[in-house]
């Protein structure tokens, strides 16, 4: 597909001049590996099963450090969870509310309308628990990094012991895809770290892909609607262009 070749081309351009694999010199960043996502391409849609698995990875692994503040529990219904499932998921979280009649803040189970909170009360608390580094809110991660979901996938599955001579200071970990090469996030995924509800084998590779697909949805929840509308608009415009061109020829034929 044109779409895919543009992406490959872009990746190739980014990778131009960079040596890949074993010969990676100090300070160089590896271009992300491209994935043939179900949601890429002009008609691509999110693979519901994959995105739901990705949510499970988020909930069981990433949520202990990262929030998802632009996603409300009700939004989970958009990726195929039933209302009861979304309510049950919300019920597992507690959020702070208040003040109540006596002026005190209180905790209550989350409702569908609540946003998925950060596990930390504020940015400083988050940094304090993570060696001074801030675990970003993941809602927009797929759009906020060059390489998008390919980058997220490569980063999550790309931790390696082969550091190419890099010395990462204590509390940081080598990752060839990370600009700067050492980041404060310990490798979050391990084979069989979780057990997928749908029985898919939970390899690091699989979980990285699934959670990246999920984060693409959190960053661009209207993508399917957008592409569908785009298709109608383009068809309309092309037909209009054809008709107008014919009309132009006829009207101008009056001149001689």
């Amino acid at each position: 597909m044109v779409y895919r070749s543009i992406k490959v081309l872009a990746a190739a351009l980014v990778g131009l001049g960079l040596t890949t694999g074993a010969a990676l010199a100090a300070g160089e960043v590896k271009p992300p590996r491209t994935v043939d996502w179900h949601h890429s391409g002009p008609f691509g849609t999110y693979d519901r099963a994959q995105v739901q698995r990705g949510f499970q990875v988020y909930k069981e692994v990433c949520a202990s450090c990262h929030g998802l503040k632009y996603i409300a529990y009700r939004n989970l219904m958009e990726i195929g969870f039933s209302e009861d499932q979304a309510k049950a998921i919300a019920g597992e979280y507690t959020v702070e509310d208040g003040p109540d009649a006596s002026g005190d803040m209180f905790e209550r189970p989350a409702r569908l309308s609540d946003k998925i909170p950060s596990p930390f009360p504020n940015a400083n608390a988050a940094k304090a628990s993570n060696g001074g580094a801030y675990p970003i809110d993941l809602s927009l991660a797929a759009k906020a990094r060059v390489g998008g979901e390919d980058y997220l996938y490569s980063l999550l599955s790309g931790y390696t012991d082969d550091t190419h001579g890099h010395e990462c200071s204590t509390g940081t970990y080598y990752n060839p895809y990370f600009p700067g090469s050492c980041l404060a996030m310990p490798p979050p995924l391990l084979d069989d770290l979780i057990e997928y509800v749908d029985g898919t084998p939970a390899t690091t590779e699989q979980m990285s892909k699934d959670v990246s697909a999920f984060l693409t949805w959190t960053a661009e929840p209207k993508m399917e609607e957008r592409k569908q509308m785009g298709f109608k608009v383009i068809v309309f415009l092309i037909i209009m262009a054809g008709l107008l061109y014919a009309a132009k020829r006829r009207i101008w034929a009056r001149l001689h």
Partner: protein
Amino acid sequence: MSFQTDNKLIKWFDDRLPLVTVMHHTFVQHPYPRNLNFAYQFGSILGVMLTLQIVTGIVLAMHYTAHTSMAFDSVEHIMRDVNYGWLLRYMHANGASMFFIAVYLHMFRGLYYGSYKAPREMIWMIGVVILLVMMATGFMGYVLPWGQMSFWGATVITNLFSALPIVGDPIVTWLWGGFAVDNPTLNRFFSLHYLLPFVIFGLVFLHLVALHQKGSTNPLGIEIKGPADYISFHPYFTVKDFFGFAVFGTVFAVFVFWFPNYLGHADNYIPADPLVTPAHIVPEWYFLPFYAILRAVPDKLMGVLAMFAAIGVLFILPWLDRSRVRSAAFRPQYKWFFWIFALDCVVLGYVGSQPAEGLMLVISRIATIYYFAHFLILMPVLGWFERPKPLPTSIAEAVLAGKTSTSEGEKA
């Protein structure tokens, strides 16, 4: 002179407020050269784009919050919760890019066919003012979502004024409304971003008044001599322009619906953080050639002056060009230099997107010198040296001859 009709109501109205007469004059009576080609399409497209930016912008403004602690969230609110908010925002953000694509093509058309030459200097100069105001509008609009590029772009660009001696620092403080880019800056940028498109609207009106005073140029660069040379706007150019809208709209739609963030920066999806500087601060693509000129000059003040001079030189172009002949179709040498100049602008745009070091810096310097040499040396000198091709006696003659054998003017 005024519009003739039997309809009493229209007559009554038009007699008191001659809107119908003006429309009738513009679209039916006013002579337009019959040989206007598709390079003449972009003016009407610009009108459509301005309208579209104003309409989408006003609706965005109903949901947007101009405060540093809420701007980023309010844009995400638009993207996620407002009905068709994603469409409005992607149309507005990509619409700005399409607007600049159209304005640059419109200007290159002017350079190719000598539209700036007498007696159309006013049309051209008002156009350059419109470009400047558009740039200010686009720059301030990009600050509104308050992402990392918004904040750092605003910081870098406003800081340029500090290069001015003595008044520099007070001016920057005044622009910021404080001692750094902060909430007062965001507020005033929003206010001005709302205002300036309407200023552009007024300037466009003046642009068109000046245009109607002297009429359009045409690919042959000769004036209208008789009725055989011209046609009315309606229906000929109405249908042609609408065809152009459909084609341009298709390109626009590809961006909006499939590559909505292609022309933006990933960093702008990170909320602004005054404590973290992005690795590369790059302005939007439409500023890149000017950004390259800014950075090509080793001295900050001179760089700023060169950047403004790059637009300023356009103002005096009508007097720099000494050629007797208007259209590049009859200027064998200028035609080449036109394309070299266009390439030079693309090169400047490219180096503007790269870190200013090593080979890129060298290229940016050569391209900057060439940019100014084109206007200040080539344009005056070419008029002396060049032997223009013979001009056709009339538009009609050339067009009708072109129907059998393709003449140069017709092709161009």
